[in-house]
């Protein structure tokens, strides 16, 4: 019964989001904290080091951690105010169950009783419809220990193939592209390689707002002489003072990369020796880009031809360089092609695997890297292993002490899980660290699917928008209430340290999961006593895989401020070693378990692969009816679906509600002025928000940030088109139209963050 139990406004009244400001002990100017806990921010993939001030069982503030080398004390506003999620009035302190008779729609219940009810419902559904009738949605903001446990829990305990995670909305296009080109999915270089590069190319990455600390690396590169090229439909703060701004039409990145490679080949700005000795597949790619003349590239991308020529010349003639991209090119129904296009211009330049010659995707979530390595993806097993590979299955079956045949085959992506719910194939859902009602495209469809579930259990610390549909919500843990590792933006495995205990009946997520396993009578393999014990098993499970953690220990992480994987415990001859970790991938002469010495890339021949990166327009292109491109993204003060950041008062006050960004030329034709209400409409739905009229966006494009819910969510509008390989949704381009509007009804009933 996953319909909302009562009117949503009533649920909001009780469970928020409400705003927390500095309160209690944190307002006391004379207070001395009991301790400072060195840990990391709970939000983005940069995982800035931070010290949390702890008094009693409260986090009351922060102190910069200047010794941590990646950010040296720097923090964005989310990091500064993150502590306000602790002791929050909306915090779930007890398990709750759906109760239409209760004014809030939910009634409290004992945690153990709730866990037993969850187990009973799972058993009921599985005996009625089969094991695959239960789906699991997990997340990449979890520690790697939890992510590993979730993959094992779904396959071994629930025996369902249907687990996937919210990294499906985030890292998968980069992941597939990197695996196809390099055989391994990780940022190739440390961020220190940005400083000293001659050219820094940033495609589809609002660095200043989504990865703020990276800004200083980019600016420092420029101080040392780098030219900064930014490709974006908007002049974001990182684009404002860049050296070359390419105002690309959303969804046309593969075309730009093809056009640049065309000019590189034409002008012999390529490294023929590297291409010949270190790569395969160049000829086919060269053949494909022949048609991508500057004129055609300009026509398709909406970028003036001289700027394309200038970019190709700067990129082509540089001696060192760093290319990075993010969701701007990846959130596309051809996201993998966009990624491969960018890798092609890196490989053609020969500038990779050396100091100041780098390539990376900018990871989104806290554990966007580690969360995609150890088996919570639908087709993956720990260590970056493949679920359809018999050898990989056999190895993991041995670690898990199960028969290989018991491990289910590949499942489906997160959106397809919802389609399966829609078709009645999945009847029960367990979610942890995922708020799909806000974060998935075409959220109206997601809501209709949730309403079809027979049973839905959510684990969360706040009642997020999706969990409002749950039959039972188990009170989970905040990041600062548990320990474990995450892999940050550079592939550096770092340690999250516990600062306070879970309040009330809230419990560490891994304990809740193990509690369900026990209540199901399937506790074998789920009797870990600590995150460290899970990590020790994960080390073994990852050993010999591409993402090899076997040589990483909690102690080594602390000693050297993180350890970059691969970090094997044995050398190629099987002798124990004390490996320091691999800071930079693809260095000449390096060994990996796939190439076995044949070359530095993770293929049997040790070579990097060029792939034809074909351009095709967005799935839903503009037409007379819907003449504008809608693109979505983030603002600096909010994070993802806002479950945490829409509850932190100072962050909400910084940018309270989403606005529709549009160019003055467009606004003039629509008769809209800055601050007017406007309705953006697509074939899915419409939202009415205030207009922000700015000359920093293409006139054929509008932008709406996606962190809000309900009537304000940009994802009511977005299209559920997906990349055929990565299955990432197309958040960055769909067709829409805009008209002037009057004040919407929600203004009188909802606070800005609700």
């Amino acid at each position, binding site marked *: 019964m996953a319909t909302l139990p009562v009117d949503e406004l009533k649920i909001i009244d009780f469970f928020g989001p409400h705003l927390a400001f500095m309160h209690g002990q944190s307002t006391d100017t004379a207070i001395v904290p009991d301790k400072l806990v060195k840990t990391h921010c709970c939000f983005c993939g940069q995982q800035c080091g931070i010290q949390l001030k702890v008094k009693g069982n409260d986090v009351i503030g922060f102190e910069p951690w200047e010794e941590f080398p990646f950010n040296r004390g720097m923090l964005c506003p989310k990091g*500064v105010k993150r502590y306000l999620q602790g002791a929050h009035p909306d915090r779930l302190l007890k398990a709750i169950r759906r109760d239409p008779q209760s004014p809030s729609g939910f009634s409290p219940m004992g945690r153990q009783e709730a866990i037993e009810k969850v187990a009973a419902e799972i058993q009921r559904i599985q005996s009625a419809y089969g094991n695959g009738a239960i789906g699991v949605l997990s997340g990449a903001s979890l520690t790697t220990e939890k992510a590993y446990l979730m993959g094992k829990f779904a396959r071994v305990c629930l025996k369902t193939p249907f687990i996937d995670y919210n990294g499906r909305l985030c890292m998968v296009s980069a992941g597939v592209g990197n695996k196809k080109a390099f055989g391994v999915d990780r940022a190739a270089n440390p961020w220190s390689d940005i400083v000293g590069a001659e050219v820094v190319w940033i495609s589809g990455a609002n660095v200043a707002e989504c990865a703020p600390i990276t800004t200083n690396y980019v600016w420092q590169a420029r101080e040392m002489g780098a030219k900064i090229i930014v490709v974006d439909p908007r002049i974001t703060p990182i684009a404002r003072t860049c050296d070359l701004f390419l*105002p690309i039409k959303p969804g046309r990145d593969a075309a730009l990369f093809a056009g640049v490679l065309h000019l590189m080949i034409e002008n012999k700005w390529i490294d023929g020796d590297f291409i010949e000795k270190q790569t395969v597949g160049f000829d086919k790619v060269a053949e494909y880009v022949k048609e991508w003349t500057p004129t055609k590239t300009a026509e398709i991308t909406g970028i003036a031809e001289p700027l394309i020529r200038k970019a190709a010349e700067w990129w082509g003639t540089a001696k060192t360089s760093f290319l990075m991209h993010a969701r701007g090119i990846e959130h596309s129904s051809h996201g993998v092609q966009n990624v491969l296009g960018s890798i092609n211009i890196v490989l053609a330049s020969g500038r990779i695997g050396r100091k100041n010659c780098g390539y990376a995707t900018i990871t989104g979530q806290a554990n966007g890297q580690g969360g995609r390595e150890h088996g919570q993806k639908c087709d993956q097993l720990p260590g970056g292993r493949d679920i359809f590979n018999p050898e990989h299955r056999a190895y993991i079956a041995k670690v898990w002490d199960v028969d290989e045949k018991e491990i289910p085959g590949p499942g489906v992506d997160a959106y397809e899980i919802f389609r399966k719910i829609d078709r009645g194939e999945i009847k029960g859902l367990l979610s942890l660290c995922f708020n799909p009602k806000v974060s998935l495209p075409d959220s109206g469809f997601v809501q209709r699917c949730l309403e079809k579930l027979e049973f839905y259990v959510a684990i969360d610390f706040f009642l997020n928008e999706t969990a409002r549909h749950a039959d039972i919500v188990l009170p989970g843990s905040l990041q600062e209430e548990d320990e474990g590792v995450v892999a940050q933006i550079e592939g550096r495995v770092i340690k999250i340290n516990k600062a306070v205990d879970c309040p009330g009946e809230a419990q560490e997520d891994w304990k809740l999961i193990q509690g369900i396993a026990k209540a199901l009578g399937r506790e074998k393999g789920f009797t870990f006593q600590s995150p460290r014990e899970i990590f020790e098993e994960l080390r073994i499970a990852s050993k010999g895989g591409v993402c090899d953690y076997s040589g990483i220990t909690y102690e080594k992480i602390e000693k050297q401020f993180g350890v970059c994987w691969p970090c094997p415990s044995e050398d190629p001859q099987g002798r124990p070693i004390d490996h320091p970790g691999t800071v930079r991938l693809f260095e000449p002469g390096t060994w990996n378990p796939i190439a076995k010495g044949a070359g530095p890339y993770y293929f049997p021949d040790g070579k990097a692969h060029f792939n034809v990166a074909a351009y095709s327009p967005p799935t839903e292109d503009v037409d007379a009816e819907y003449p504008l491109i809608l693109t979505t993204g983030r603002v600096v003060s909010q994070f993802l679906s806002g479950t945490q950041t829409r509850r932190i008062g100072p962050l909400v006050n*910084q940018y309270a509600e989403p606005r529709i960004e549009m160019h003055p030329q467009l606004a003039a034709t629509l008769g809209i002025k800055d601050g007017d209400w406007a309705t953006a409409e697509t074939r899915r739905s419409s939202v009415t928000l205030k207009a922000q009229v*700015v000359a*920093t966006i293409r*006139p054929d494009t509008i932008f709406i940030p996606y962190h809000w819910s309900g009537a304000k969510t940009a994802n009511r509008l977005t299209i559920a088109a997906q990349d055929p390989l990565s299955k990432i949704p197309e958040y960055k381009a769909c067709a829409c139209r805009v008209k002037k509007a009057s004040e919407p009804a929600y203004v009188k009933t909802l606070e800005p963050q609700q």
Partner: protein
Amino acid sequence: MAVPSNQHFFIDPSRCIGCQSCVQACSECDTHKGTPMIHLEYVERSISTQTTPVICMHCESPTCAQVCPADAIKKTEDGVVQSARKPRCIACNNCVLACPFGVPKMNAGWELMTKCDMCYDRTSEGKKPMCATVCPSQALFFGTFAEIEALRPRSRPVNEFRFGEQLVKTKVLMMVPRGGLTEVVDVTAAMHGATPQRTVHLDLMMSGVFANAAEGK
């Protein structure tokens, strides 16, 4: 203790990304909890994402102190101009109106002028100010002249500002470009391949600063 004499505050608005980390961190200070003392403004959001962080410039001869009828604004020996002293401040707003940089603000609830004191609780103990520590773009930088010279070869610090007839010398330094600036101010300009040169005129920073910058010192 005093602020170490070799440690200086440098502001480079060209680096600023408007993230407000400085504002949010300032409001965490133990001495003025919940109230930020730093101002971060868009210059003109309709045409640019340019923002400018404004902290107290800590003038050698502080105008705010000169115009204070109650002698409430004091400067420490190490050159930090402090917030108004509560027992003396009469909340007359003279300082608010007179400061050429627009820094002091009247806190109506407290009936007291408050402003940035360069995190004196931190800097006098050898730590960096909170805003400069957290600033993700390092538009706010705290360190030595040797460090700034090594890290910022494209710009140079100035600390003399002319306001009409008044020349103001400050403890805090502003980074200005050594060369000219090219700015794209409108996406349509870049779409059509034209990236017109634009000179930015801000009343705050008068011609003297730009003249010095143009000499390429």
